[in-house]
C-alpha cells in the first residue's frame, strides 16, 4: 500500500464523485423498475429504502359487499385491497382534515355512517340503514410505508406490453446481423491480407473510407431499393433478411478493418509453410486462420452484437412496427411516446432492453474493451 498522502486522498475522493455521478442514473432506473407503480408515481426512488410517511386516498367497497349483523349493516374490507405491509397511523374522512382520527377511532361520515380504520388497512363501516350507493366512500390515510419491492412491473411489461416479443425479435435481428458479417468479412479480410490480386489496395482504401461514411448516406437509396425489390417480387419490403443485410452492410467496413488489422499481425511464415505443403487457401483459412482468430472473432462479435442490439435507426427504417417485427429500442421509443407518464413501464422496459448488453458487458468485458481499443471506428 502506498502512503496516504493528501493528493491520493483527494484523487480517490474525486474518483468516487465521478463513480457516483455515473452510476446513480442507472441505479435509480433499476430501483424504480422494482417499485410499486402507485408509489413510483408520487415519490422519488431514493425514498424507497427507508420507511416513509405517505398520505393516500382510498375508496371503500360499495353496497354489494354489505352484510347485516343484528340491527346494523356492515361493510368490511381492507383499504389496500390486501395487506401490503403499510402501517396506517392516522386517517380522515374529509379532504379538509385528512388526519383527523387515530387508528381505531370511530369516524363519522356526513351521512351519519361510522367507520373505523385499523393499522393494517382493515376497516369496518357501520350503518343503521341499508347501504344504498354502489360506490364506496373516500378515506384519507397517513401511513408508514416500509421499503417494498416487487417484480410485478416486469410481468406486466414482458407479457402485457409486448416487450417479451420485442425481446425475441431483437435476438432474431441481432444474431444473424452479427454472424453473417463475421463470416463474410473473415473471408474478405483473409483475401485482403494473404491473397494477391489486382485492385487490392483500392479495395483496402475504400474499406478505410467506408469506415467513416455516415449510415445516413445509405438510408434513402437502400430503402428505395428494398421497396422496388419488394414490389417486383411481391414480397414484403421490410423483412428480417432485409435488415440482416443492411446491418451486414453497415458493419462490414469496421468488421473487415478490425479483422484485417488482426490478420496482418499473424506470422506470414505460417501461411508460406502451409502453401508449400500444398494447402489451398480454403484449407489455410479453415485450419490455421480461423482457430488463431477466435479471440479477435469474440471481440468483433461483441462489438457488432451490441451495436445491432442497441441500434434504433436501422430498425426503424428497415423493419415494420407491428408486433412480430418491432425491436426493443423501437418499442421503447414507442412507449416513451404513448406511456410517457407510466414510469413503471418505462423504467422496467428500459431495464429489460439493457439486460443482454449488461450481461455481455459484465461477463465478457475483456473482449469488449479489447475490440474497442483495437480501434473501433464505426461507420
Amino acid at each position: 500500500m502506498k502512503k496516504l498522502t493528501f493528493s491520493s486522498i483527494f484523487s480517490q475522493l474525486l474518483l468516487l464523485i465521478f463513480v457516483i455521478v455515473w452510476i446513480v442514473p442507472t441505479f435509480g432506473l433499476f430501483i424504480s423498475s422494482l417499485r410499486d407503480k402507485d408509489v413510483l408515481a408520487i415519490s422519488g426512488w431514493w425514498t424507497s429504502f427507508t420507511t416513509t410517511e405517505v398520505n393516500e386516498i382510498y375508496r371503500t367497497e360499495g353496497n354489494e359487499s354489505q352484510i347485516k349483523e343484528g340491527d346494523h349493516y356492515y361493510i368490511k374490507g381492507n383499504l389496500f385491497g390486501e395487506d401490503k405491509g403499510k402501517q396506517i397511523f392516522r386517517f380522515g374522512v374529509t379532504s379538509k382534515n385528512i388526519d383527523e382520527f387515530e387508528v381505531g377511532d370511530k369516524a363519522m361520515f356526513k351521512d351519519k355512517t361510522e367507520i373505523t380504520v385499523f393499522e393494517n388497512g382493515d376497516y369496518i363501516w357501520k350503518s343503521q340503514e341499508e347501504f344504498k350507493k354502489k360506490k364506496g366512500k373516500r378515506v384519507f390515510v397517513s401511513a408508514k410505508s416500509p421499503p417494498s419491492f416487487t417484480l410485478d412491473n416486469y410481468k406486466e411489461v414482458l407479457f402485457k406490453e409486448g416487450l417479451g416479443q420485442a425481446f425475441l425479435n431483437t435476438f432474431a435481428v441481432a444474431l444473424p446481423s452479427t454472424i453473417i458479417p463475421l463470416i463474410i468479412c473473415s473471408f474478405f479480410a483473409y483475401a485482403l491480407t494473404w491473397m494477391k490480386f489486382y485492385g487490392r489496395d483500392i479495395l483496402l482504401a475504400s474499406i478505410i473510407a467506408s469506415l467513416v461514411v455516415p449510415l445516413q448516406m445509405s438510408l434513402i437509396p437502400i430503402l428505395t431499393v428494398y421497396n422496388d425489390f419488394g414490389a417486383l417480387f411481391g414480397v414484403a419490403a421490410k423483412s428480417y433478411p432485409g435488415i440482416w443485410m443492411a446491418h451486414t452492410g453497415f458493419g462490414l467496413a469496421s468488421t473487415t478493418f478490425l479483422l484485417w488489422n488482426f490478420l496482418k499481425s499473424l506470422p506470414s511464415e505460417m501461411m508460406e509453410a502451409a502453401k508449400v505443403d500444398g494447402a489451398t487457401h480454403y484449407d489455410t483459412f479453415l485450419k490455421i486462420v480461423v482457430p488463431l482468430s477466435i479471440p479477435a472473432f469474440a471481440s468483433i462479435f461483441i462489438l457488432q452484437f451490441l451495436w445491432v442490439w442497441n441500434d434504433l435507426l436501422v430498425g426503424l427504417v428497415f423493419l415494420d412496427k407491428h408486433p412480430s417485427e418491432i425491436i426493443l429500442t423501437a418499442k421503447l421509443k414507442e412507449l416513451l411516446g404513448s406511456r410517457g407518464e407510466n414510469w413503471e413501464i418505462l423504467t422496467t422496459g428500459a431495464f429489460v432492453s439493457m439486460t443482454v448488453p449488461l450481461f455481455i458487458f459484465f461477463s465478457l468485458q475483456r473482449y469488449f474493451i479489447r475490440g474497442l481499443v483495437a480501434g473501433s471506428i464505426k461507420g
Partner: protein
Amino acid sequence: MNIFSLATTVLIGVLFFIAFFHLSNFLLDYFRIKAARKFALENSIRVIIFIGPAFIVLFVFIIYPVFETIRLSFYDKQGENFVGLHNYAWALNDPDFKRSIINNLGWLLVVPTLSTFFGLVIANLADRAWWGSIAKSIIFMPMAISFVGAGVIWKFMYDYRGPGDQQIGLLNAIAVSLGFEPQAWLTIPIWNNFFLMAIMIWIQTGLALVIFSAALRTIPSETLDAARIDGASEFKIFWKIIIPYLEQTILVIWTIITLLVLKVFDIIYAMTNGQWQTEVLANLMYDWMFRGGGDTGRGSVLAFCILIGVIPILAWNLYRHKQDQKV
C-alpha cells in the same frame, strides 16, 4: 411469430452463407484435382469466391448509396425530376436546418471535448486507486446501453412535477432541496441542448476512459518516476508529460466521438424529437425521409451535410493509412 419460427429463420439465414463458402470452395478443390492445374485461373476464381459476397454488400450498401444520395439531392421529392440546387436553396432558408447546424456545431464542440477530458482525468485517477478497475467498469458501463435506454434513464432524471408536488426526478429534487424552483429541463431552449449532450458525454466518457487506460500503460514508468524525483506535482505531470505523450490517442478518441456526434439521432429522437430548438441534422433527415410521404431530395441534402462533416476525418484516415502502407 413464435420463438421457433424466429429461430428457424435465423438458422437458415446463417447457414446460407456458411453453405455458400463451403460449397463453392469445395467445388473448386474438387475440379482442381480433375482438371489440369491451371493455377492462375484457380487462384482468380478463389479470389472471387473470397471477396465476392463482401464486395457485393460493400457496393450495394455503401458505395452505390453514397453516389445515389448525392444524385438524389439534385432531384425532386420522388427523385424523378432534376431540380438543380433547389433543395440546397431550400435548406439554406429553412429555420429548422439552421437550428440543426448550430446545434450540431454545439454538440461537436462540447461532447468530444468533455468526454475526452473526463476520460483522461478518470483514467489517471483510476490508475492510482486500488479500486480503480471497479471504478472503470462502472463508468464504462453506459457504453453497453442503447441510446434509447440511456434516454429513458435520463428522462427519468430530468422528470418534472409542478412546484407543489413531490419531485420524482432526481435533478429537480436536488434543485428543490437547494431552494430553487423545479424546471422542465428539456423544454428550456438552448440550455436543453446541454442536458441532451450530458447523456452523450455520460456514454462516451467510458470509451475514452478504456482507450486512455490502455494507452497510459505504455508511458515508460522511468519518465514518470524521474519527474516525481525532480519534485513535479501530480498535476504538473499530468499536463506536462501525460497529455503530450498521449497526443495521438487523444486525437483518435476525439475523431471517434466526433463521428458519433455528427450522426447523433437516437437521443434527440427519443427525448425531444427536435422540439424546443433541439433539432439536429440526423433527426431532421429522418423526419424528411417520412414526412408527408417522404422527400428524398431534402433528405439527401441533409445526409450529404453530415457527410461533409465527415470528409476531413475521412481524408485524414486515408492519409494515415497511406503512411502506414509505406512503412
